[in-house]
Structure formats: structure tokens, C-alpha cells
């Protein structure tokens, strides 16, 4: 361990780690950006139904070049295909699915998370404009909310903080955080460090995390 160089996870590796936590048969909503990549890494033998806020359940990968249909896009406005069994519905039904706790897992991007699981991810601090889109409803309504983000800002400041300073998306919603250096659960007593990236110790992760992390044993190394 001591000899392993610190190796933060790449975006694709974070996405791959997240996908390992999708149970067979789960209904999953993927946010725009890094979360979308998780669809590429579903473990063999598991069937996952993807939900998109604009009215799709059971959509599949991007179409072949030349077969794109402007009427068949996901929430990120990317071209997709439908799997056999997939269906369409309107936006009010779509949000009945998320707000009504019918979606098992939502994977969202994050700007800040605190130990209570409050999330900020829709607007940069001090910006004139931000886009909420479906984030507030999805964060509030999914049974589990996974946040995918880098552990710190590009200036090195922690994104896991004691109190949010960015505009809030939803309170007490995040259940698990996946970063380039750790997997952290939001538990009833605060943050529990579960896994670390290769070459990192629990102390290394704590050093760039504002609230106190607890862990039962030395955390496992994320397999990459």
C-alpha cells in the first residue's frame, strides 16, 4: 500500500464504480455529465431500466450514426434508442415517478454536499442565472441519491463541507458520494468513509474533506 502512488480515479472509473452499485432490476435516473457515463458500465447479468425526466423509461444506447431521431432524446438532449419494453409518457407522469418515490436510484452531479446529505448542484455561487431543470424534484424523490463529483474544486477546496455555501438543490437527499478519491456514505450519524482510491489513506481523504469522516476499519481500495 505504502508504495502505491496516489492514483485518483478518472471520470470513467468513477462512473464504473457507481454502476457496480446498481442492483439487478433497478430503475435508475442518470443526470447530465459524468452520471450519464455510468450507463456504459453495467455489470454483466444485471438488467437496469433507465428513466429520463423528459418521458422515457427503458431507453438504450446511442443510435448508429445516421439513425439519430430528433424526437428520441434523453434529458441531456442526446440521441438515444428504445429497448424492447421501453415506453413514453408525459412530463407530469415522469415527475410522478421521481417525486413519488418510484425511481430506485438517481445519480446526480454535485457542487457541494454536507454531512446531513444536503446537496447543492444547480447554480454557481454568485451567478446571475442557473438551471434547475429536474434536479430539485429528482434529488427530493429518488429512493437513493448518488452524487458523482471530484473531491475538491479545481482550486483544491473541499466540496464535502460542513455547511453549504452554494444555492441548495434539496435537503437530506444524498445517500452516497462517489469522488475521484473516495466512496462515502451519508449515514444517520454523518459521513462514513467506505473506500479510497489506490494509494490514498483515510487520512489523505480526511485532509481534503471539511467534516469529520468516520470509518469502522481501514477503508477498502476501489478496484479499478
Amino acid at each position, binding site marked *: 500500500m505504502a508504495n502505491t502512488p496516489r492514483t485518483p480515479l478518472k471520470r470513467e472509473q468513477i462512473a464504473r464504480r457507481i454502476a457496480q452499485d446498481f442492483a439487478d432490476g433497478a430503475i435508475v435516473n442518470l443526470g447530465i455529465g459524468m452520471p450519464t457515463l455510468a450507463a456504459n458500465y453495467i455489470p454483466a447479468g444485471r438488467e437496469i431500466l433507465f428513466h429520463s425526466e423528459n418521458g422515457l423509461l427503458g431507453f438504450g444506447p446511442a443510435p448508429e450514426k445516421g439513425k439519430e431521431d430528433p424526437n428520441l*432524446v434523453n434529458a441531456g438532449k442526446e440521441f438515444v434508442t428504445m429497448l424492447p419494453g421501453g415506453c413514453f409518457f408525459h*412530463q*407530469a407522469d415522469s*415527475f410522478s415517478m421521481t417525486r413519488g418515490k418510484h425511481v430506485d436510484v438517481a445519480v446526480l452531479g454535485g457542487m457541494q454536499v454536507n454531512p446531513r446529505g444536503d446537496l447543492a448542484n444547480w447554480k454557481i455561487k454568485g451567478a446571475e442565472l442557473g438551471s434547475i*431543470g429536474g434536479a430539485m424534484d429528482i434529488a*427530493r424523490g429518488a429512493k437513493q441519491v448518488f452524487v458523482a463529483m471530484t473531491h475538491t474544486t479545481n482550486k483544491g477546496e473541499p466540496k464535502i463541507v460542513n455547511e453549504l455555501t452554494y444555492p*441548495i438543490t*434539496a435537503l437530506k437527499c444524498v445517500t452516497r458520494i462517489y469522488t475521484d478519491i473516495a466512496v462515502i456514505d451519508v449515514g444517520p450519524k454523518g459521513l462514513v468513509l467506505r473506500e479510497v482510491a489506490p494509494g490514498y489513506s483515510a487520512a489523505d481523504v480526511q485532509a481534503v474533506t471539511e467534516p469529520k469522516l468516520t470509518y469502522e476499519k481501514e477503508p477498502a481500495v476501489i478496484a479499478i
Partner: protein
Amino acid sequence: MLNKIVYSLATAVADVRDGATILVGGFGGAGVPEGLITALLRQGTKDLTLIHNNAGRDETSIAPLIKHDRVAKLICTFPEAKTAYIFRDKFLAGKIKLELVPQGTLAERIRAGGSGIEGFYTPTGVGTEVAEGKDRREINGVMCILEYGLRADFAFVRARLGDRWGNLVYNQASRNFNPMMAMAGKIAIAEVDDVVELGGLNPEHVVTPGIFVQRVVKTENLNG
């Protein structure tokens, strides 16, 4: 005889007056009634309030109406986007007002408005800036905020097929906001790819019952 077919886009929007409120269907580029928007632009109506998920998409969707200063206020969920540069400039210049709404709340406000429900309590947005000034109430142990139903003078919707009674079916992800917008517009105008004879739509497959639609018009390429 009940015949809702109108024979041109220009005729369909001829009675939209200055100051009107219009629900405009679509999500990104899918399901946007581009023909009705172009016809309205040519007609010259101004001081509009538009309700639409996005804030324009490059030079399409509602962007031309914003560009030509026809829109006094926009109610939307996703105003900040690379493709919404026309809105951004007008907003920062103080030429257009914005009401920002979470997407699921927007969909439900429209469904409520079209269903004779004046308001409802939802957990979405609690603790965020969208809750500011709104009534808060704990129901069944869940903190909620009061949101009001939304209705409009007109709804511009985009569908694949319609008949002379106003029954509609949609095209995949182009359904999005269109069905509930049809319900909430005093005059709902459906721009369709094709008009079919009565009986041409399987009653089991009708998505929007004709009772919610006042006018059906076949799409034309006004920019061609």
C-alpha cells in the same frame, strides 16, 4: 359538425393579442411547435408571457420571439444553457423577466391548472430559493411548499397526428410537456405532422383526448 381543423398556421394564431400568456410545448428541440412560433413572430404580437421548459435553443424554439423583444416574461426551468445565449443577453439587459420553477413542479402546476386544481403542496424546493415567500406546511411529516396551478390564454402544442375532434398522438420523446399544456390552455392549438380521419386513431392509443384541444393545424415549413 365538430371540426377543429384550421387551414393555416397564420389563421391558427391570428387572435393572439398583445399581453397574452402562452404555454409552449417542447423539451430542448423535441416537440416544439416551431411552425406556430414562426407564425406568431410574423403576426407581431408582443408583451407575451411564455411558459416553456427551456429559454430558447440557438436561433430556434422560442429564441426568435425573445430576440425580437416580443416576450416580457418567461416561466421556465432551464434558463442557463450554452444554447440560450439570446435569452441570457436580454435577461442581463433587463429586457425580460424570469420566473424559475423546478421541472416537476412546472409540469404539476400545468396539470393542476388544466384540472381545476388551484394549488397543491409539494416537498420539491423546500429549503431552496424557490421556496422564498411561499406558504410552508408539514403534511404527514413531510415539509412542503404551496404551489399554484398554471393556466394560460393559449397553449401551443406539437403532436404527430390529430383528427377533427382534436384527439392527438405524439412522437416519442416529443410528447414531454405537450399533453398537460393542451389541458391548461384556454385555446389549445395543436400543430401536427398529419391530420387523420375520425377513426384513424385507435381509441386505446389516443394520448390527448380532443376535449382538451380547440384547434388542429397541419405543420408547414414557414422558413423554407
